[in-house]
């Protein structure tokens, strides 16, 4: 059975998340008056914008945060939504591309590291289902882990989807110096995706070599409370240092 070459790309579609449900990942990291609010979740961009403010109010009420957070939360969500919307008008070309996605997350006491392959042209993919299966198979008890995994996957998919659009835009504009370099970068990215012809062609095998199995195996670590606290402290320190460095750089830049 001769496999005819698939068409170079599917019909271009309007920009959207390449998953079954068009939900975008939202990440919040707000610090104010000593209170630090970090969260990540999925948002449905077709929800009316009024939902944002009511969500912010509800969150602040539930978590007993100071009211100043309301405006900050809704601002953050709005800006992320706007970023998504800025791409929405464009078309994206979804070529069949299987990319490795990575997970390296810590949720309360659970640390998960994993990598797996994802076909971004598969518009029926479901990060939530994947997350649920993963948690179930690995007997993860913390219910917060699943959603975090799903958001992490969505973020990576979003990044890749943006590149799809951006590169298309770039290539249409034409190659010029710097822009050429960017498109070169983009093709480098696509190299990280699988060489489909080789693997799935007649000579390749779809079963991985046994010695490589461990690379694609999820690793789950349960940390003790002390380790969690230590890691949290370290992260805070790093974040603060980074902020200071950024500020210094900004000042430096301004002077220049």
């Amino acid at each position, binding site marked *: 059975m001769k496999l005819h070459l*698939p068409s170079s790309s599917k019909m271009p579609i309007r920009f959207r998340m390449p998953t079954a449900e068009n939900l975008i990942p939202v990440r919040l990291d707000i610090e104010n008056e000593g209170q630090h609010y970090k969260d990540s979740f999925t948002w449905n961009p077709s929800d009316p914008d009024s939902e944002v403010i009511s969500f912010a109010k509800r969150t602040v009420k539930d978590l007993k945060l100071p009211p100043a957070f309301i405006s900050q939360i809704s601002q953050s969500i709005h800006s992320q939504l706007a970023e998504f919307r800025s791409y929405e008008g464009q078309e994206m070309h979804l070529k069949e591309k299987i990319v490795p996605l990575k997970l390296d997350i810590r949720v309360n006491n659970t640390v998960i590291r994993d990598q797996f392959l*994802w076909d971004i042209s598969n518009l029926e*993919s479901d990060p939530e289902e994947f997350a649920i299966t993963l948690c179930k*198979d690995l007997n993860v008890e913390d219910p917060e882990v699943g959603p975090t995994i799903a958001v992490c996957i969505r973020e990576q998919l979003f990044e890749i989807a943006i590149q799809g659009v951006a590169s298309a835009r770039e290539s249409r504009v034409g190659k010029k110096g710097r822009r050429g370099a960017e498109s070169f970068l983009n093709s480098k990215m696509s190299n990280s995706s699988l060489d*489909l*012809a080789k*693997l*799935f062609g007649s000579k390749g095998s779809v079963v991985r070599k046994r010695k490589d199995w461990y690379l*694609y195996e999820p690793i789950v670590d349960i940390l003790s409370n002390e380790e969690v606290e230590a890691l949290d402290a370290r992260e805070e320190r790093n974040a603060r240092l980074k902020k200071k460095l950024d500020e210094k750089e900004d000042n430096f830049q301004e002077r220049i």
Partner: protein
Amino acid sequence: MTQCVDADLSTRRFRERELHTIPISSSWFKWDEIHEIERRSLPEFFDGGSYSRSPRVYKEYRDFIINKYREDPSRRVTFTEVRKCLVGDVGTLRKVFLFIEKWGLINFSVSNGKQRTEEDGGPVVVVEIGPAAGLKVVPTGPVSSSTSSSLADATQIGGESGFRLPPLTSYSDAFGEWKPANGLICGLCGDRHRSGLNESFNGGIAMCSKCRTNETINGKTDVHLTPPNDHADVKDQSSPVWTDTETLLLLEAVLKHGDDWDLIAQHVRTKNKLDCISRLIHLPFGEHMLGTISAKSSSTNLITPLEEYKSSLQVLNDNPPVLTEANGDRPVETEGAEIAFQGHPLKRRCFPPFTDTPDSFMKQVASLSTVCGPYVAAVAVDAAIRALGQENPSARLVFETNRDKFSIPVSSPFKNEFKSDIKVEDGDAKGNKQAARVPEKSFGARTFQVRAAIATSMAAAAARAKLGADQEEREMELLMASIIQAQLKKLQYKMKYLMEAEAIMEKELSYVQQMKSLIVEEWMNLLQKLFHSGTLRWGDQGFPKPLIHSFSTRGSNF
């Protein structure tokens, strides 16, 4: 429902052939082919639209997953294990995995408590039936609904994981919570009360203060409040265990002193007054004793009918359980009490006669249980339990109408305790809150008790039914075994005879063969003689007569 499929692992030679079971609906599966069902369910592999999805790829995925499972069929293989070994989009892989699992080609022989099928959405809810789905001694409307709902649960679950009958009530379920140490149990939530129990009654059910407040919130009627009892406190502080000797002493004392709790407590040296009372109430026939000893009103002497019962009820049990159906509560309990009293001298019964004749009823039930098979009895018990649950309100009504009659004998033992004017005929709650409380209180306990008795009796009947069923099964097995044995013996004999016959036949055969060879020899001799004697005229004259003669004589020797 299964079909065996030879697993021919492509990585190994044909030396080992294993048997795996898959559902019969999946018999289309073949290692070497891709079936139409697969093509239809996973079209993305077969439409030639992509590099990464082709029939070859699909086959590799499928074969790998199935082989992975068959490496250890007793263990469930998870998607995560499999996807680390295969190259390809995890979404697509998952589709393949689910497809194969749905058709039972993997994870089929794994014992599973929670089985996820494709239909299940998110988390699987495992419904657990608590112990005693049948009866619990907490008589209210809520319980009857929970009983029926848990029964419904049982049948629902039965659909999923095989049919499961609701567990039969056992003595421990009915009486498990009745240890005197626990004191009284709230009728609704089953909590053991600590100090400061507020017993309030809603239709004769004791509730703890929590439930009472809930009930009032829910707008239930007739909540009578009682002050916390030192009664209860003292009870809680008592030593919990009643030994046999103490019980014996108690019973003796009750019979001797009747009403006088001080004397009884004296007799049972180690227990105080209230302990004795509570213990007596909690004994299955205790309340009857109370009635007996304080009997003043007319009593029917049922000693003679008792003898008749004894014989018919020998079948049933040694303990005071009594077979009953929903309406026969009251009379049944007293009957049981009677029988339990076999050792004790029977006093007058103070309960006035009832409208339904307990005599024939009991007899009927007893004879019925022996006549019909054990399974029928078990089913009848189930029905009785359910009926009891449904008929709670009517049973309660019965109690309420009879209240006045009973309050007389019952309140008198408590007279000494509370030392209040008890106007029992006056049912007016306003002026006689205390009076009303007293009969109610013991009433509540009595209600409990009746139900306890019923529970025990049904439990006993059910247990007997089960035993009977077991016995029948064993008998059946025994009979089967003997039948099989008889058949085997028959076969053996037949074989023996056949073998003998064969031996005989063989002997005959050899004999015949011998004879044949002898005859042939003679024939040869005769021919030789003939030739020697030179007769050449066979052709026209036939066989020479003397030869024929000698030949025929030879022939007749056979």
